[in-house]
């Protein structure tokens, strides 16, 4: 039963990928390429490229992509449900514990240590995308010729607008996509 197989594969991916998208990639590769031969390695590389070009978590993108190729829309639905099923159960359990016991001193203490950590993780993700926008795939460099000045100016403008006018951030992202897209097409 192929649908059951798909469900079980993505259930395992959902269960064992702790720590976000990058942690999920080797698990997906193991299930989809190595164990089941549902995709070739080059198709898998395409999948990761597309997952990074489209919105949404990599695990969900992969589930939809692999599910559709193996068993059409039902396959995609089953794979996606399999992927989020472990999260639903474990997060619901943690949510219940959190809302019931959040006044406990120990839990308050743990969370007081985690809040600044989350800020740091967001900052790190932001800086990674910033360096991707400014220096491309090669990362930080002191060579002025490698700096993408279009990105630098757009970043500065976007941040200025966000701080001063406080618009909906979606518009800023869309606007920079359109303006940047036009500029890069012309250049």
């Amino acid at each position, binding site marked *: 039963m192929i649908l059951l197989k798909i469900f079980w594969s993505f259930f395992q991916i*959902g269960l064992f990928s702790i720590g976000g998208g990058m942690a999920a990639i080797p698990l997906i590769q193991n299930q989809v390429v190595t164990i089941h031969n549902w995709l070739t390695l080059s198709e898998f590389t395409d999948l990761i490229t597309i997952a990074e070009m*489209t919105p*949404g978590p990599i695990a*969900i993108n992969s589930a*939809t992509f692999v599910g559709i190729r193996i068993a059409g829309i039902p396959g995609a639905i089953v794979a*996606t449900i399999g992927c989020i099923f472990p999260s639903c159960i474990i997060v619901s359990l943690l949510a219940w514990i959190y809302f019931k016991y959040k006044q406990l001193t120990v839990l308050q203490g743990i969370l007081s240590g985690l809040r600044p950590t989350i800020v740091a993780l967001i900052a*790190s993700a932001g800086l990674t995308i910033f360096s991707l926008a400014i220096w491309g795939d090669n990362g930080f460099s002191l060579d002025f010729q490698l700096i993408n000045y279009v990105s630098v100016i757009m970043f500065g403008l976007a*941040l200025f607008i966000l701080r001063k006018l406080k618009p909906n951030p979606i518009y800023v992202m869309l606007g*920079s996509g359109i303006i940047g897209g036009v500029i890069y*097409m012309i250049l």
Partner: protein
Amino acid sequence: MKSKNNIYKKLFVSSFYLSAFTFGGGFVIIPLMKKKFVDELQWIEENEMLNLAAIAQSSPGAVAVNAAILIGYRVAGILGAIITILGTVLPPFIIISVVSVFYTAFRDNLIVNAVLKGMQAGIAAVIADVVINLGGNVIKGKDIISVLIMAGAFISTFYFKINVVYIILVCGFIGSIRTLFHSNKNKKDDNL
């Protein structure tokens, strides 16, 4: 009843379009969720949002889905969680379903690549904006341990690429020790 339906509708629409614009993983959606649910709708407090983000990061699975479950549950119970899961999963599901049909054309399309390249600068600015607010609040709190945790976690993840799971474990441990130490000290002060 009408206001409840309104909340469900708003939950679905918010999580749907946040998910539709989350390029680049869980820590891009957390700042957007913070802007939407804390600053704009004021359904959740800033500290609680960070607590929920910490739980989402510590659980298995995609951070965006986990955070959506927690926010939905916090705002409108189990039904709220189901609504936010649907809202978060549908955009990538629909987009990938369409793209999978002609994915090589999509991958090599110059316009798509140019727009995505342009969006990077905007996404970086949105995250920078939220980090300035959140980080500023941590520093303004004048709690030296929190500031040290933030700096240490940043260096560990950005420079040393240490697995986030270990960073979460260590920082949670430091936080619990500090609180126990504080409450013992307070007890002693009370006895005096």
